[in-house]
């Protein structure tokens, strides 16, 4: 009898906790329509806004988004409450953002991976589920080799990858991602060169692998690589951008070398589709003003961000242009049919 009481109390504890969990999600659901019907006034914003960041707190994307967000919040006279909703290459957070009430009180930080996720079919959330506000950074990438590598130029590297396909080890992030796509495009331009891919968790691990000579080459964002190049532990062969980069003025672009590969990663902001136009206009205006704030520009430069501005229309055009390319390179790499 006593034993039953005990098991009962355990069940009760679990039931209570489950109840708590249930209440939490219930509250979220019932709250939504109430705010949705409230007329969005130009008085926006009247309370702090949420910003959903899909990368973990303290990382490069997180810091960039918070910096931009803080200056935009100043323009709006309210603050952002930053939420890091991470996982599934961002799909979880973007899904949550796209499904939140389109009243302007939820702003999503968007990065290139939203295109990859959509092309891969990882998520039902499309970039079209967002109304874009603006783009504020670009992350140009380059091809790097260890300091004492025998390869002196991109041509030599690609020729070797063609002569002995799938022997040269290239460090990337998990397959199918942005870096792998860039490298896939390079392969496609050389008719037969193939690398052996070694996926690492992120940039830090790739830098370590390059400096420790555990790989033959790697694709990496340029930001933060200067020092390693100056020190001589890592060399840069080419930049995969339209123009040469100010960090490495002597390094040619792949385009100059005859390989037409431009692969640009970016960061920007969006709101769930259906957000009232006046609210969107106010947000875009605030982010634009914040971007042009000299104080922000100085801070961003200190933080090593490659600033690049596109307004909502240009940003949309960029994504519309990139998406078919993402699809075709993923097809070429064998990830999608």
């Amino acid at each position, binding site marked *: 009898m006593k034993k039953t009481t005990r098991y009962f109390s355990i069940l009760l504890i679990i039931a209570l*906790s489950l109840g708590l969990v249930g209440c939490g999600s219930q509250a979220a659901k019932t709250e939504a329509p109430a705010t949705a019907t409230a007329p969005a006034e130009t008085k926006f914003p009247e309370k702090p806004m949420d910003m959903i960041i899909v990368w973990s*707190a303290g990382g490069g994307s997180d*810091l960039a988004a918070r910096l931009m967000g803080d200056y935009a919040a100043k323009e709006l006279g309210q603050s952002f409450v930053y939420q890091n909703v991470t996982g599934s290459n961002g799909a*979880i957070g973007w899904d949550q953002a796209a499904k939140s009430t389109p009243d302007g009180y939820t702003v999503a930080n968007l990065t290139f991976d939203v295109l990859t996720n959509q092309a891969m079919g*990882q998520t039902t959330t499309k970039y079209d589920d967002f109304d874009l506000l603006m783009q504020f950074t670009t992350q140009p990438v380059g091809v790097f080799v260890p300091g004492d590598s025998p390869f002196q130029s991109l041509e030599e590297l690609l020729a070797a990858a063609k002569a002995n396909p799938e022997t040269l080890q290239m460090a990337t992030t*998990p397959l199918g991602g942005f870096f792998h796509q860039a490298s896939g495009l390079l392969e496609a331009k050389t008719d037969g060169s193939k690398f052996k891919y070694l996926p690492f968790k992120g940039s830090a691990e790739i830098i370590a692998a390059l400096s420790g000579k555990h790989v033959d080459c790697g694709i990496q964002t340029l930001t*933060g690589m200067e020092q390693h190049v100056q020190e001589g532990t890592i060399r840069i062969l080419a930049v995969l951008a339209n123009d040469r980069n100010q960090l490495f003025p002597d390094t040619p672009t792949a385009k100059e070398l005859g390989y037409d590969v431009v692969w640009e990663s970016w960061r920007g902001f969006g709101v769930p589709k259906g957000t009232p136009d006046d609210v969107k206009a106010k947000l875009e205006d605030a982010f634009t003003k914040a971007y042009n704030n000299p104080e922000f520009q100085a801070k961003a430069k200190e933080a090593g961000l490659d600033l690049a501005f596109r307004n909502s229309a240009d940003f949309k055009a960029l994504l519309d242009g990139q998406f078919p390319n993402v699809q075709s390179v993923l097809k070429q790499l064998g990830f999608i049919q």
Partner: protein
Amino acid sequence: MELVFQAIATIFQPLNFFLTLAGVLIGTLFGAIPGLTATLAIALLSPLTFNLDAISSMLLLLGIYAGGMYGGSITAITIRAPGAPANAAVVDDGYALTMQGKGGLAIGISNVAGVVGGLMSCIAMIFLAPLLAKFALLFGPAEYFSVTIFGLTAVFSVSSKSFVKGLFSALLGLLLATVGYDPILPFSRFSFGVSGLSRGLSFLPAVIGMFAFAEVFRLVLEYQGEEAKEIIHVDRIWPNLQEMKESFKFMVRGGFLGIMIGILPGAGGTIASYVAYGDVQRNTKHPELIGKGSLEAIAGPESANNAVSGGAMIPMLTLGIPGDSVTAVLLGAMMIQGIQPGPLLFKQHLDVVYPIFAGMILSNICLLFVGMLVVKPISRIATIKKPLLISFLMIFGVIGSFASSGSLFDVLIAIGFGILGYFMDRYGFPIAPTVLAMILGPMVENSLRQAMITSNGNPMIFITEPISALFLAISAFTTIAMILREKKQSQGVSIQGE
């Protein structure tokens, strides 16, 4: 030399000194609340440091780093809910001590150990940074695989009486770690279409569940009414000379282990504290106390995980490669301040490097005082009535698992692991190997697969690479020693039985 004096003068400026002290206090508090971590504290506070100059903001963040590692041990010792996975190694002994009324003493030892480990790692950082950084670069995929295997064997050989049960626990942890995103291919596995599972089983809720919730279930199911047993309450916080003498050896050993493991990017405090725990178990003069309230078993791991902080700073400062999640956030915070860690930092910015070193030493000294402040009230926890304690455990467990990612799904995970942990404990399966395997699982898998890609599927790579072979040999040795010991013991039992 002039720069050294300048650095010392800088950290003793009133604002800087205050920020260091405040950082240690904040770090200790964040560390002590399950679910809130030093990483989170640094991430939350780094935007506030925009208005401070580079050095002041670094001092605040370094203080948090030092405090956080220590703070996590407080709840591990008092209520079986480790503030961070790195503190999980002291749960058994710490909680046993609390139940014996010696919780204050356990926290006191943890505090001293943290300071010893922290100071040792500062010294290593100051004198050996560039050298040790080169050592870290020798580790490629094969080496990482072998080190993580070494970490796993270290824990399952120490925490279980039965080899098979220990192995089972570790393998269960590895299996659970495969839930979520594949490290190589962009697909999620074993998520059964549940979006909460597709990002993997978060390990902080798992740790809280296995330790704290399992304890709640145990207390409720075995509740016999308030026992009239007299708890001898030890009001002492500071260890006496004899206790200090015995523990100090393990603090130093733990410190060395922590530094070495901390240097390897990604290995982190959790492996270090378990490896140190194993070290204590093999070398203590009182093996019968292990798991039942050994002060040495707190000294070793707590020194090791604080030593990791200095160790992890080395690749971060010299290579720009963070060694754990806290240093990753610190790296971001430094870049926001316009300081780019990397090979050139030591050549061009000694004016920044020295104050960082001085600040780390200062924060470890502050830790000694802040530690004293919080110990007294907490040390009386054993006198709390059981029903009240159960409620507290439950509340902190729910808050802790919720706060780590702001997701209620994680509370469910914690409860699930609580049930798992209760039954594992009841049937003699050790919990620690499962916890560590869940944390190391992704690293084991990733490095195994990377190494196999490198070698075109030839497993000999783990033996032909010398460092890797060394670690595998040590792992094999530990495992065989454990099997032999178990055999000997079971023979001893059967002879006695005859």
